[in-house]
């Protein structure tokens, strides 16, 4: 489809802009300088602990998740806000979770690194690199065994993950059992604070997939229309029972590994070049040149900012979890024996 000139193009833009607005606000809140109301907070950060931002990578979840249903499953990485929003999770409940509040998706038990909304099939961000891959093939295996529908599982992972054993094990597993799983490598070129290239033998995710007879498609991951188009085909093939597929999306991690990491180890020229291809600015330019009204796009941006501001205020005012919640959801068998 020509998503650039249709309502679908605006929808992709909206998804990316909401992700960017959410993460910008979370980043500010993680630094403790500004409260929900723009005043000096003068104290601890509202969003505590490691906050991994996907700034600059928004085109990948937007383009892929546009093809997914609520009943499809998704596993994510430690950099999972974009995946979660794109899969349809409520933005306000996400912000509440980042604030550690009782009204968050996990009741404040998980935070940013474990953001999840099982009600829309988003089975969780994960604090361990590559850990989502085996879980994804298990979910896809269950989908195949239960034969209830043509639902699929999508597994997001980074370029760093392909150097861990579970990546290899999961791809092999998916091919052996011909599972309905789409692997999506968000190749943002960085493994924490080390460049991935020098740490990776061969040509990366798509080459490794091809070695296991899994058809892989490489795409400009900063071009949301290209991602959208490639994902349309791959999701369709996986849904149709063709077995696993891999989408290798080349993108760039604009921020450091975590929000407090200024990435001083990185060549500024590399970042500057990457910013030239910022997916949101590119999409805006593309939509404008395709005849979409600037006011329409401005309205999308303003709505996202308003939505995030409201979410910040709600998260700020929301109650903390009761201390007793530390003892629930651990396990049922033998509950009460942890003291």
């Amino acid at each position, binding site marked *: 489809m020509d998503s650039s000139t249709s309502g679908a193009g605006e929808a992709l833009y909206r998804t990316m802009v909401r992700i960017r607005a959410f993460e910008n606000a979370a980043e500010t809140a993680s630094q403790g300088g500004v409260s929900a109301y723009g005043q000096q907070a003068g104290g601890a950060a509202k969003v505590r602990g490691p906050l991994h931002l996907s700034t600059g990578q928004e085109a990948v979840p937007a383009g892929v998740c546009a093809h997914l249903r609520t009943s499809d499953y998704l596993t994510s990485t430690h950099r999972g806000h974009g995946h979660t929003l794109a899969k349809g999770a409520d933005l306000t409940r996400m912000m509440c979770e980042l604030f550690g509040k009782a009204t968050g998706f996990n009741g404040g038990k998980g935070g940013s690194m474990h953001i999840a909304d*099982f009600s829309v099939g988003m089975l969780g961000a994960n604090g361990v690199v590559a850990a989502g891959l085996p879980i*994804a093939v298990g979910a896809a295996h269950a989908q195949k065994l239960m034969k209830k529908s043509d639902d699929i599982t999508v597994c997001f992972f980074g370029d760093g993950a392909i150097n861990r054993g579970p990546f290899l094990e999961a791809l092999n597993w998916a091919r052996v059992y011909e599972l309905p799983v789409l692997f999506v490598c968000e190749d943002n070129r960085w493994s924490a604070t080390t460049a991935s290239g020098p740490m990776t033998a061969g040509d990366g995710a798509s080459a490794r997939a091809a070695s296991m007879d899994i058809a892989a498609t490489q795409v400009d991951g900063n071009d949301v229309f290209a991602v959208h188009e490639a994902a349309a085909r791959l999701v369709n093939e996986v849904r149709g029972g063709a077995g696993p597929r891999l989408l290798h999306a080349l993108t760039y991690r604009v921020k450091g590994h975590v929000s407090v990491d200024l990435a001083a180890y990185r060549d500024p020229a590399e970042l500057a070049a990457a910013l030239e291809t910022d997916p949101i600015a590119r999409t805006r330019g593309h939509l404008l040149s395709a005849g979409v009204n600037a006011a329409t796009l401005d309205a999308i941006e303003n709505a996202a900012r308003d939505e995030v501001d409201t979410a910040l205020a709600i998260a700020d005012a929301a109650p903390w979890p009761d201390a007793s919640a530390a003892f629930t959801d651990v396990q049922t*068998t033998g509950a009460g024996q942890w003291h």
Partner: protein
Amino acid sequence: MALSKELSYSEAAVLAVQREMEADARVVVLGEDVGRGGIFGQYRGLQQTFGAERVIDTPISEAAIMGAGVGMALAGLRPVVEMRVVDFALCGMDELVNQAAKNRFMFGGQGRVPLVARMPGGIWDASAAQHSQSLEAWFAHLPGVVVVSPSTPQDNYGLLRAALQCGDPVVYIEHKTLWGLRGEVDEDIAVPLGKAARVREGNALTLVSWSRQMQACAAACDALAAEGIAVDLIDLRTLWPWDRETVLSSCARTGRLLVVHEAVQAAGFGAEIAASAAEATGCRIARLGAPRIPVGYAPVLEAQSRVGVEAIAAAAKKLLG
């Protein structure tokens, strides 16, 4: 009505899985060699009965077996994941420790992971340092999982069924040298998780153990009985949650506790029981476990890791003295 029949520890396990698979279509088995019955026969005949889609032969991919089990459980199945031996389960440790055990809590109860991870443990004759470990204390230390270690065919039948019904992740440790042990199995006897068994009754001292070490403990009790020493022998059966009430009430009555396990004594689960008994009852305490050495291959070396009948009896008498 089901009749009591003599089965091996391995056959009892097959029967337990079979009954759960008959009762619940969500129960599936996955692991290496399970299609041909498992390396100890603990899945014999199940693939023939339930098909290769429910008894799934897998590649040698422990991380993927355990991780896929987590994903299957989240998607509504109740997987039994086979690790061959507890030593190999370490290749799936992230998937067990960080994923299966933590999922329910860190996602605020959005999902449940009802999987049973079977990982045969303990000294396996002449199998040396990487096939003979007893690692139950590692798992008992891990919030979010149940830890089970049966010592008889009846208990293996009952506890495995209970494990499959409980809805939490279960680390299920069968002993590598108990597979051929035969005994009566009554299908109508349910064995609840978290409930110990009193195997011998007595007032002289409390002796707590589990898994294969129960056999040496029972033999030691018989020897002590011949000398007029009546021991209260308790088979813990479930390590987490462990049956504090049965153990501590016995300790309060006898005033003496001896804990015996095959695992390395240092930081073993016996320490948890000993400390709990000391705090609750102030009883006299002794522990017996293996020295902190890897299990050796040659018989004389392997024997250094074994806790024998004579050592148990001697420790009991010392505690009484």
